[in-house]
Structures are given as structure tokens and as C-alpha cells.
């Protein structure tokens, strides 16, 4: 699994080629590696946005408005479905099971850290910051 982590980190998601390569390196059957990759929800087999939100919608979070947070994120990033990537390739949102921070519900995991007590405003701030970051790095590239 650490080998699949490295592949996913490099490519953003696990392609068939990446899984075959891991299998070959570790001297494992390609089907076995794919079997492992498809079992675990943190391995992505399809592309995600550069900014991917993992929003908990299990009971404790749903009781405090997680579904509304998901709807708000979808609307703000312009997608209809979970795991759909926004047209600009920047964002996607995934509904996940309990992330173990129930006392801060509703909450989500984003950029390797937990974000607590979510409100539409907090989500907007994060989305706006991500957009600004991208446009400023594009600026740098254009002028650099």
C-alpha cells in the first residue's frame, strides 16, 4: 500500500499502468494489486480535482448539517455529483464515512488537514483561497 501511495501522489490517481508497475516492482500479480487498490476508499481510480474535499456525512455530521454543506460545495464548485471534477479541473467533493472528529461536526478533510464546524461561509473562504492561489500561480507562470 505504501507503493500505491507513492504512485497516487505522483499521478493524482491510480491508473491501470501505475498499478501494473507497482505489481511488477513488488513481484505481485497485477490483479492482486488492483484488488487491493479497489478495496480502500483512499485510493482513487479516477481523477479528482486538484482541491478535493472529503466531507463526512455520517450520522453525527448529518445531524448538524453535513448534507447542506455538501450541497453548498457542489453548487459553489459547479458539479452535480460527488466525485465529479469541476469544469476547470480544480475541485471535486466526495462524501465519506465518519472521520472521527464528531465533536466538531460538521467537518471535512481537505489538504491533509481537518476543517471543523463547517458553515457555508467557511467553505466559501476555502474555495476562494484555492481559486486565488491558482490564479496567482498562473500569473507567475505567465510573467515568469
Amino acid at each position, binding site marked *: *500500500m*505504501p507503493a500505491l*501511495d507513492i504512485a497516487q501522489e505522483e499521478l493524482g490517481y491510480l491508473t491501470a499502468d501505475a498499478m501494473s508497475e507497482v505489481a511488477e516492482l513488488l513481484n505481485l500479480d497485477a490483479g492482486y494489486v488492483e*484488488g*487491493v487498490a*479497489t*478495496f*480502500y*476508499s*483512499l*485510493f482513487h481510480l479516477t481523477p479528482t480535482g486538484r482541491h478535493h474535499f*472529503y466531507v463526512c*456525512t*455520517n*450520522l*453525527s455530521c*448529518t*445531524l*448538524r*448539517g453535513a*448534507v*447542506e454543506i455538501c450541497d453548498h460545495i457542489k453548487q459553489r464548485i459547479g458539479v452535480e455529483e460527488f466525485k465529479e471534477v469541476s469544469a476547470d479541473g480544480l475541485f471535486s467533493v466526495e462524501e*465519506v*464515512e*465518519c*472521520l*472521527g*472528529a*464528531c*465533536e*466538531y*461536526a460538521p467537518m471535512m*478533510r481537505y489538504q*491533509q*488537514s*481537518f*476543517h*471543523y*464546524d463547517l458553515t457555508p461561509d*467557511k467553505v466559501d473562504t476555502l474555495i476562494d483561497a484555492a481559486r486565488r492561489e491558482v490564479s496567482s500561480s498562473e500569473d507567475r507562470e505567465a510573467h515568469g
Partner: protein
Amino acid sequence: MADAGAALRGSHGLERHHLLTADFGTPDLHRLDVYRRCGGYRSLEKALKEMAPEEVHAEVKASGLRGRGGAGFPTGTKWGFVPKDVPGPRYVVVNADESEPGTSKDRYLMENSPHLVLEGACIAAYAVGAHQAWIYIRGEYDRPHRLLTDAIGELRTEGILGPKPFGKDYPLDIQMYRGHGAYICGEETALLESLEGKRAQPRSRPPFPAVKGAWGRPTLLNNVETLANLAWIIEHGGAEYARFGRERSRGTRLLSVSGNVERPGVYEIELGVSFRHVIMELAGGPPPGRRVKVFWPGGSSAQVLPEPMLDLSTDLDEIARAGSMAGSGGVIVMDDAHCVVKAAHRLLRFYAHESCGKCTPCRTGGDWAVRTYERILSAEGSAVDLEILDRIQESVQYGRCLCALGDSAGQVIASTMQHFRDEYEEHALRNECSAEVPRRLDRTPRTEPHPQQKGAS
């Protein structure tokens, strides 16, 4: 707000019952020097230098400590299952795959005092004759993973992990291993499969992990909170620990209280206090104008208890006698603004999604249940659907599955139907919902494509 700045939500400090959390809130407690200034690693030093492994084991037995992961099995007894006379390596595996819905106390422990967990793992390793411990931590726990990794680094630098901890010729090491998002890994044999790099499907038992665990070697698996108790027990003695709590539920435990309460948080309580105290006093009760409708006393897998049961004690055996279980200590509170059938539907989606697919009743039962709930909630239900739910809960429980996941799913259906039959009938027979749900009553349930079993592609 990102996690780094989050304030502690819960109880800690100098009350009599704050055994684990007494030093929580001390700035930089996650650092080795601060932890040691608070008395940290004195217990490990004492165990290594002054006690034989059997004496450590005897103290834990005397403490009456029971596993805090969910099953509540006596820790001292479990340690006794690890054979003494088998040559070759043996392991301690820390179950840090906390993923029972409504449970966050292991995260709370690891974030606030990673060394408390590591010290416990070292003490347990010494007691059962292991030199290597693994921490299997769920992949989503980024911050606890970082803190534990740094803490292990500090211990290696100081030589507390290494060939001679505290000068004693007893090599110790701890390694981290990250999970990748699968609830089933909390089940100890599935965790071992995952640790070995496989799909996490539970093994049939016997042999039990104590005899044949990780890589076929004798392996002790303990939950994070269970191990976090050890430093206190070794420092003060098992008999002193047993003065807390009552009868067969000794000591304190951490309850994570979430849902419709004013002050959700992780509270350390002495076992035996009532749920009324935990929910209404510590966690501040439901929002103004609302009342508690139902609560899950020990994670979503524990049978629901309706409001009149609030006076029930947190004693593990009393919860069992009341027809539920103390489980993981995740107390989920739902107020009267929410619908039990919808809550059960949400939880069944969880169990269906997390079924590993190995045994048939659980693999197909969860899926059937979700589709049945969707029919009921989208005004297409009938009396037949209630019978179907009843048949499903019966077929996934009572030892018909390899592990407890099937039972858990069945218990959600059975206990909600037992206590709230009228709400089920309203939905299924009359397409009504008398549970006052101000938020989006009109919302039709999400109809998802056939909820796929993991890896069934």
C-alpha cells in the same frame, strides 16, 4: 478552521477522575521534554528496571481494565493468551483505526498526548515479550500520524526506542502503518490482513491473533485508549486503578459525545455515572426547546436507547443488560427534530458501503436494507418492506457473519424498529413523518446507483 488551532473540546484537568487527561491542555504536551516534565515515561522506566514482565501483567489484571475498542474484553486476560514459550518474533499492534461512527476519543488522545499512547505500547510490548510494535492508524488521521511519527523520532533520538531503553537490555521499536479508508480494519483480523498489505477481509478464528497474528506470529492487539491507561496503572498500581468505577467496569473511560448537544466533546468519566450526567450535564443537553429523542451509547453499532433510558449507568455490564453495548464509547445524541427512519437509513448506507464482501449475509443484506429504506422513504413502502427489514436484521445477526459488522447493521435495524415501530409504519404505510424535521423535510432521499460493495468492480 484547520485542525491545528482547534481548542480541546471535552473534559480534562485535576478532577479526581481525570486519569488520562490530567495534563491535557499543557502547552506542547506532544513534545517529549514536556511530556517527561509531566511525569511521562516514568512508568516505562519503572516497568523495565524494577518489574518483571509477569509483574506488569499482574498489575493490569488487578486493575480490572477492559478493552476500550468496542468489545470490552478484559485486557489482562487478553495478554494472557499470548503464548510465553514460542521462540521467534512477536508483535504488539496498536489499533488506531478509529472509525466507528460517533467515536473520536482515540484521535483526541493521540493529538493531545501521542507519548501517552507510545508509552503504553512500550509497556505492553515488554509485558508480552515483544520488541516491535506497530501502530495501525487510519489514513485520514493526518495530524495524529504526524504527531506520532515525530514522537517516535524523539524517542529514537533519546534512546527510549532502541537497543537499550533506560539502560535495560530490552530492545524496543515502534513503527507506523497507515490505513487507507476501510471501516472493517477496526476488526482485528481484518486489520492484520491490511497490515500485511492485503484486502482487509476478516480471518476466521481460531487461531486467534494472540497465537497466530501478524505474519503468522503471536500478536497482541490493543486499542489506543486501552494502552493509554497503562502508564497510570503502572505508576499507581492496579489496585488503585480498580478503586475507580464499579464491579466489572473499573477505571475511567473517554466518551465522545456528538450529535444534537450543546457542547459536543470528548469527556473522561468515571465508569458508572449515568448517561443523563454525560449527555445533559457534561455535553449540555439538546438545543433549547428540543428534547433528547434517542441516543446510541457506544457508537452507531450499539443498539439505540430511547430518552427514558437516560438514567442508565455507563457501567459496561449494565448497558449490556439494557439490551445495548458500551462499544466504542461514541455517544450519539439525536433530538426530537429528527427522524429515526432516516437516521437508520444513513447508518445502513454506511454498513453496506463498508461491508468487506467476504460473507454473503452481510454483503447482500446491507444492500437490500438500503434499497428497502429508500423505498420506504420515497413513498413507495408497504408492510412488506417492514417484513423485509425484519428478515434482513435476523439474517445478518447471531453469528451468521464472520465478524461483528453484520451484527452491527442488524442491530441498527432491529433496535430502531423495536423502539420506533410507529415511525416506521408512518413512513411505510402512510407516507408521513411526524418527527418534526424543520430542515428540508421535502428532500427526497438520494437514490444512489446500486451501492457497490468495495472492490466488487
